[in-house]
Structures are given as C-alpha cells and as structure tokens.
C-alpha cells in the first residue's frame, strides 16, 4: 500500500477518464439537452471501436479512421432517431433496439468478436503505452485533452447557432418548440446523431488506447457515461454555469469516476465488489444534489436549486 503507486497510476486513470469523457459529453447531449435517455451508446461505442480498428488494419490513416468511426456512430444515432420519430417507438426502446441490432453489425464489421491492433506496428494516436516515457506531444492525456477542448469549442459554437438553439428548445419544452415552428422530430434525430457520433469517436480512441476492439466493450457504457454526467454536475454544478464549462465538467466527472476506480484497485479491495462499488458511487453522487436541496438549503434558494436540477 504505497501512496506513490497510486500517484503513478493516476495519469492512466486521467487518460482513460478523458477518453470516456468524450462519450459522456455525447450522453450529456441526449440526457440533459434533449431529455432523452438514449441506450444506443452501449452499441455505438463498439461500432466506433470496430470501424476504427478495421480501417487502420486495412491501411488507412489514423485521422481518417477516427473520422469514419465518428460518422459510423452518427449513423447509429440516425437509426435510433428514425425508429423514434418516424416509427413512433418510445425513445428508450428505440435505443435498446438499435443497441441490440448493433451487436450483429459490430460482429460483421470486425468479422469476429475481438480484433487486436498492435501498438508496435501501427501509428496509434493514443495508447496505454503513451502515458509514461514519451515526448510530451504524443502523450495520450495531452492528445485527448486537445481533442476534448476542440469538441467542446465546436459544440459551444453549434449550440449557439439557430439550429443548435432549436435543439435545446426541443429538449426544454417540445410543445412550445413546435409552436414556434421548430421541427422537433428533426431536432431529436440530429441530437441523437451528434451524441452517438461523439460516442463512436470515444469508442475509436478507447480501442486504440486498450489495443483492441471487443464486441463487449460497449457493455455498460451508458452507466459510465451517466455516472460521469452526474458526478460532473454534483461536483462542479455550483461553479460551472456556462454551457461550455458544463461540458468540461462532464469530462472531469468521467476522470473522477476512473480516479475512484483506480483508488479502489489500489486499496486492494476485492475486485469482485467492483460493480457494486461503481453502483454505490453513482448512487451517492445522484443523492448529493437531492440531499443538498432537501436538508441544507435555505428556503429562499430552494426554488433556484429545484429549477436547476
């Protein structure tokens, strides 16, 4: 039990957290902005990973592969959107259906259940290997941080445009948005596409980071993503009011989630309890805003907290 081991392990946790943070930002867009619980992500994360690895194995450039993985993720969002809007299936079910179907799609993309990519032979953008002893501009943490900031900047700009505002309006109050002449179905589909595009990109980075794409890699992604969203809001909610900062808070939330996980492993707690501990961590962070509002706020600020939540 050596504190330096923990400190040494933290960069890895930060890198993993940042990569998942991109997926979490995607989940934030559906869950918070559009007010849809989108379960497509459990499948689209794997799709992103599979597409990226297969593209790279067939000799494509890493950036092209990432772009195509993002586009593939957007397609999965499009499918969920069409199921939801055009076919009238409830959002949560549409997501589950797409996720289910993606298992077969991902299997066909890779041709098998698990495809490795050798870090020594391919020029990967991020890898578990590139955390220590590399030149600083190849460091995974820096690379993913730059990508995250870039994405946040683009999203901040986009949600400020007329189209982006209509998307936010759809999530806030669908009826009102429709009354204003916004095509809410289009907004929902677009939101789902953006969200799953980000998740696909995250999956692509993740598969490079861990050195393989696996058919099971997306399993439970929605839980990790929601955990990141909720932890980010619970910890930074009071300070970060601006939309861009809120997105960054989500990425931080993801890092905190992996910090906790790393500490649990460092403490040598029985790893059989890992899933239970994850559930407890998420439950506690979910409860914090509720308790704060219920027991610790003065009556005057009570209203404000409620509207924010």
């Amino acid at each position: 039990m050596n504190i330096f081991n923990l400190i040494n392990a933290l960069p890895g946790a930060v890198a993993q957290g940042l990569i998942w943070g991109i997926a979490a930002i995607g989940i934030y867009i559906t869950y918070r902005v559009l007010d849809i619980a989108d379960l497509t992500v459990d499948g689209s994360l794997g799709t992103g990973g599979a597409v990226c690895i297969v593209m790279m194995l067939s000799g494509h450039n890493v950036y092209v592969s990432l772009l195509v993985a993002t586009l593939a993720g957007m397609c999965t969002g499009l499918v969920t959107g069409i199921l939801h809007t055009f076919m009238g299936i409830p959002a949560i079910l549409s997501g589950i259906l797409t996720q289910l179907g993606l298992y077969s799609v991902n299997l066909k993309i890779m041709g098998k259940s698990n495809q490795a990519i050798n870090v020594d032979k391919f020029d990967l953008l991020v890898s578990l290997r590139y955390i220590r002893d590399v030149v600083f501009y190849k460091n995974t943490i820096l690379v993913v941080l730059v990508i995250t900031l870039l994405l946040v900047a683009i999203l901040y700009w986009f949600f400020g445009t007329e189209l982006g505002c209509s998307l936010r309006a759809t999530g806030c109050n669908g009826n009102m948005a429709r009354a204003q002449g916004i095509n809410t179905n289009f907004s929902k589909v677009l939101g789902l596409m953006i969200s799953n595009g980000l998740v696909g990109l995250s999956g692509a980075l993740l598969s490079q980071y861990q050195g393989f794409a696996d058919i099971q890699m997306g399993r439970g992604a929605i839980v990790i993503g929601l955990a990141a969203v909720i932890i980010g809001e619970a910890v930074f909610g009071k300070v970060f009011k601006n939309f861009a900062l809120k997105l960054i808070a989500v990425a931080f939330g993801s890092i905190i989630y992996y910090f906790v996980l790393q500490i649990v492993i460092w403490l040598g707690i029985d790893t059989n309890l890992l899933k239970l501990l994850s559930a407890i961590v998420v439950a506690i962070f979910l409860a914090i805003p509720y308790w704060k509002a219920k027991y610790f706020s003065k009556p005057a600020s009570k209203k404000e907290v409620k509207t924010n939540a």
Partner: protein
Amino acid sequence: MKMKRKIATLLVGVMCLGLAGCAKKEGYTVGICQLVEHPALDAATQGFKDALTEALGDKVVFDEQNAQNDSNTCSTIVNNFVSKNVDLIMANATPALQAAAAATNKIPILGTSVTEYGVALGIDNFSGTVGGNISGTSDLAPLNEQADMVKELFPDAKNVGLVYCSAEANSQYQVDTVAGYLTAMGYTCKYYAFSDSNDISTVVTNAAAEMDVLYIPTDNTAANNTEIINNICKGKIGIVAGEEGICAGCGVATLSISYYDIGYATGKMAVKILTEGADISKMPIEYAPKFTKKYNPELCEALGIKIPDGYEAIQ
C-alpha cells in the same frame, strides 16, 4: 481555519506513512489480471501461484485482480500494475493479455488460457514465439483429435452442429478449425452461434432438433450455462466438448486439458524469467503437457453410447 490546518497536518502525516512504506522489499511482486471468475481460469491462476510459491516461497508477493468480465477494467488493472512497476504480469485470458500488451513493452508478460497468441495480438505469420516482452501458455487441445473423437463415438452421424458464443474470439477460432477437419472427414457442419446466455436455449433447441451430434469448444459462456444445455440435450443428442467443465455439465466426452497444469507451466516460465534471467523474447508459447480422453458416464448411459477403451470417467 484551525480545522483546515488540522486536516492538512493529518494529510502530511498520511503521506509520510506512505513514504515509510516505500522502502524496497526483497523479493518479487507479480501482478495477476484475470478476466472473469470461472472454474477453468481460477484453476490456471491457482496453478500459476502454486508453481511460483513452490520455487520462491515467501519471496514472491501476488497482486491478484479480477476484471469481472469487463475488458475496460483490464486496462485499469494493468495500468495499476505498470505504475507499481511489478516484476512480472500474468494475464489470464485474451482481453487481459491484450490490455497488458498495450500497457507495457518492458515488464515481462506471461499469458495463460489464451488459445491463439497470433490471433490475440494481431501478429501475421505467427511462428510460435511472440518476441518482445510476451510469452505464455495456450489452452488449445489438439483440435484434429477432437474431430477424431466425434468420428469414434458417433460413426453413424452425418451432421455436426457447432455451438459457441459469437462474442468469444477463441471459440470462433476453434469451431472454424474443427469444421475444417470434420468437413474433410465427410461430415456436414453447421454453425450455431449465440450472442449471450439469453439466446442459448433457443439456439441449442434448434441445433438439437436439426443435427445428429453437437460440438462445443472451450467457450466461457457455454461453460457457465451447461445446465440449460443439458436440460435440452440430455438423452436426445450427444455433445463432444472442448474442455472438462463443459463435458461434466452437458457433454458426452472430451479431450481434456488441465487448466491447473497450464497455469503451473506458466508459473515455471515465470520462475525462469525472475530468478534465472531467462530471455522472455526467446521463449516459445507452451502447450498443455498431457491430454486425457474423458467421458461423462451418466450422459453416455442416457444416450446408450458404448465408450471404447482409453477413456477415463469424469467423477
């Protein structure tokens, strides 16, 4: 303010304690990353630990972690090992090995319960030695002998159903290879893949109705669900299994390897690397030292199969 200062003092105290614990201990630390709780993988880990403890006694300390069948957690665990700078990593099952290979090219990595290292690590023209910092043991039982076993026990059968989980790369490799041997022997093979434990009953019911005999490779999902398979197949159709656990649950016969043995062999490799300074990059992948033909008396009787000589009954 006072409170804050107290907390700060406390924190500094804790960090000093951490420093005190930092003094380098004599001996070796070995990190073990196992994919999932599972009788076969547990046996391999146990064999590995026994071999090391026999050779090194108290000088070896194990840091044993289980990823709960979540490949992302493998990365987290391995990252922890690399930052602790353990002397050796033992990766039990394919995703654990892949995560370890991505994490370090310095710390020696020994894999076990991995069927095909070339497939697992994306190496073309795999020659039997991985090179670099990786070696280990394979759980592959000779697949041609398993195909022979089908012929020996079911001479009248024509159609063989291959039942496996589509999420497992190892299983895919085995059924592909076995299908090759069986087709060459004149059998017709059909694949029956299920995606998780929820599909098993539907897929196996179909397979049992359409085929004359079934084959199940060393598939983790099948191994965890032998009860369902047995309920469908008992007395109706015979199953040749890739490993003893599956055979004991629902199979008629198997060509068995002992996961304890391959774990033990991995442990011996670890001893060579740690104490004798053996070069891991030159160590070829090792296979199970012996194979035993085994049969399940209860299920053979239910089907009225006469077992030839040379088979051992599973207890």
